């Protein structure tokens, strides 16, 4: 045996080879949310088809949820319409739903793992590109579009082409104040935002082995920002310990049997990869994006790059366009960039450990007077756990707003958004033009601890100076 996890999972889930040459792949878990599914359900109705495996489908609501006032009906009539459509669809087809009123609601990529739905060796699909997050457990997890959501609802299968595998080994211990977010930003800066097209990324090496599940999720989450549709980490004791006792994880003897199978799904030691690359974890510093795609980042001690010194994605024109949009000058330090908004949240960095790290920086300080700062937990469960540790008080005393669970300012399909040319220090995953709701708004991606530091300093600053 010399197979990667991807190959093993792929083989087990292959139903047949389609006449088009694609693989018909069985989907073990289909996660759905309000934005990318209403049209899919309508297409099913038009064709008179039902949902094939409702028991393998799980719904939540996250993108449009207001994080301040969650009273129904929502103030935004369009949001209310989407919410009602989801409610009708899950009722009609008998799909389990982490409704707003339950303690299970949250961002789809936060609640799947939290509830133990996400498990090693399974295939997962969801109408959202950050479905790659679930690969942290050794699942093969695809982001799909609405017509594919329809396919999965109708057949629990995807028509899909196989992927190559690139192993990315990060070795050595990360320095204090350096997090999974910095590692993935470094990887994307090195390999480029389209370097992963056609590949699954397998993250390995001692730095990744030592990471918690929360941190592994942060890395896998942003695989798609590097062009890789899926990313995964081989399951190990950390994975199993996380799953033990979760609502939908196997229990008792079944857990012991599951563990054996999960372990057997990990890539073999002699597995052959289509590509391999290595990074020195000890050399990574906190990173900040300066441009309009997640590959455009620098270490916090570095200057904003010059168009003449282009990286892997780097044609000069792209760098110039980014500098233009951001209003930044090549050669100036990224540190010291003034920020207007600080956002801790999103499926990349809104889990309990993220909030703990941010709170550690914030404790005993005040948010700078010109900064609007908010913390948006990824799920109701994260919010409750954080409150039981008193993190909410630390944030609020410092001047942060403490919100309800949802996607919030990550993409601004809800009331949370940037205004005008505001600059936002954000723990989310995309710094695309207009992403945070204002067509001219500017996003600087960084770790939650770096966001906390920026909120307090009122400008981008090296969090390592604040962690003593």
């Amino acid at each position, binding site marked *: 045996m010399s197979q990667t996890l991807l190959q093993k999972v792929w083989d*087990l*889930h292959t*139903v*047949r080879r*389609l*006449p*088009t*040459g694609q693989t*018909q792949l*069985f989907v*073990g878990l289909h996660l759905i949310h309000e934005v*990318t599914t*209403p*049209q899919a359900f*309508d297409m099913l109705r038009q*064709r008179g*088809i039902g949902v*094939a*495996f409702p028991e393998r489908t799980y719904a939540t609501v996250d*993108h449009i949820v207001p994080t301040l006032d969650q009273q129904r009906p929502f103030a935004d009539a*369009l949001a209310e*319409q*989407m919410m009602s*459509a989801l409610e009708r669809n899950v009722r009609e087809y008998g799909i389990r739903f982490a409704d707003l009123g339950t303690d299970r609601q949250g961002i789809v990529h936060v609640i799947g793992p939290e509830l133990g739905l996400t*498990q090693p*060796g399974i295939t997962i699909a969801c109408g959202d*590109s950050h*479905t790659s997050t679930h690969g942290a457990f050794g699942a093969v997890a695809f982001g*799909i*579009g*609405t*017509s*594919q959501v329809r*396919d999965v609802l*109708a*057949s629990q299968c*995807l*028509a899909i*082409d196989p992927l190559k595998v690139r192993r990315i080994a990060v070795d050595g211990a990360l320095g204090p104040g350096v997090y999974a977010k910095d590692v993935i930003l470094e990887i994307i800066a090195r390999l480029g*935002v*389209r370097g992963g*097209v*056609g590949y699954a990324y397998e993250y390995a090496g001692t730095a990744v082995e030592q990471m918690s599940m929360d941190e592994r999720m942060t890395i896998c989450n942003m695989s798609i*920002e590097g062009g890789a549709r899926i990313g995964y980490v081989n399951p190990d004791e950390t994975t199993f310990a996380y799953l033990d006792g979760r609502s939908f994880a196997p229990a008792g003897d*079944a857990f012991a*049997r*599951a563990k054996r*199978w999960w372990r057997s799904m990990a890539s073999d030691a002699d597995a052959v990869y289509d590509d391999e690359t290595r990074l020195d974890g000890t050399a990574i510093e906190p990173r900040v994006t300066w441009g309009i*795609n997640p590959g455009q980042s620098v270490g916090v001690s570095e200057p904003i790059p010059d168009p003449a010194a282009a990286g892997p994605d780097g*044609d000069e*024109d*792209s760098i110039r366009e980014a500098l233009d949009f951001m209003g930044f000058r090549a050669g100036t330090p990224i540190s010291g960039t003034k920020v207007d908004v600080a956002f801790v949240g999103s499926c990349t960095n809104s889990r309990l450990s993220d909030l703990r790290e941010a709170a550690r920086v914030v404790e005993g300080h005040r948010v700078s007077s010109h900064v609007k700062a908010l913390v948006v937990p990824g799920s109701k469960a994260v919010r409750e756990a954080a409150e039981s540790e008193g993190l909410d008080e630390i944030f609020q005393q410092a001047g942060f707003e403490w919100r309800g669970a949802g996607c919030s300012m990550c*993409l*601004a399909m809800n009331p949370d958004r940037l205004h005008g040319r505001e600059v936002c220090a954000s723990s989310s995953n*995309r710094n*695309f*033009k*207009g*992403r945070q709701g204002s067509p*001219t708004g500017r996003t600087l991606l960084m770790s939650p601890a770096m966001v906390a530091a920026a909120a307090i300093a009122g400008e981008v600053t090296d969090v390592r100076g604040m962690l003593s």
Partner: protein
Amino acid sequence: MSNFRIDRIEGTAIPVRGHNIDTDRIIPARFLKAITFDGLGDHAFEDDRQSMPNHPFSNPAYTGASILLANENFGSGSSREHAPQALKRWGIGACVGQSFSEIFLGNSTTIGLPCATVTAEDIEALMSAVEQAPETRLSFRVDASSIEMIAAGRRVSVAMPAAVRESLLSGQWDATSLLLDQFDDVHKTAAALPYVKGF
């Protein structure tokens, strides 16, 4: 449900220059707040058009274009099918570029919008020809894997993943019926999975 085969798209073209044009730019998130895809065509590139007065989607010379010309990694980012839906509803029938993001390409294929790749030199030639003469008619052929500037008689080869090409030519680009074809096999595959059996 079987679909019609898609073997050629003929018409004028619209060049959208730039690498890594993400789906947030093709259709900003606020237009996803709806339960249908209706009307998305009117908002294609909405914010880019506001900030760039010369954006091709605002240029009347390109009205009615059916072939979109793109550079590298077009359609990166969000998996929103709303992006190809918006382009299709605007009137685009095919995209030809240096490269496409995988999810965008998959989404486009399943709604019958072919995406094909060409070399950097070829896209540059196509774009500049169209910029100089927007009335230039192109013929994009899935069956011949080519795109031709009709009047000039200049033809360049395009590449498409074999499965995509096959699904367009056989009218099976909407996969639902294919996937339901041998449904017993789906149950067989599922039944053999340890986690489906409860370990």
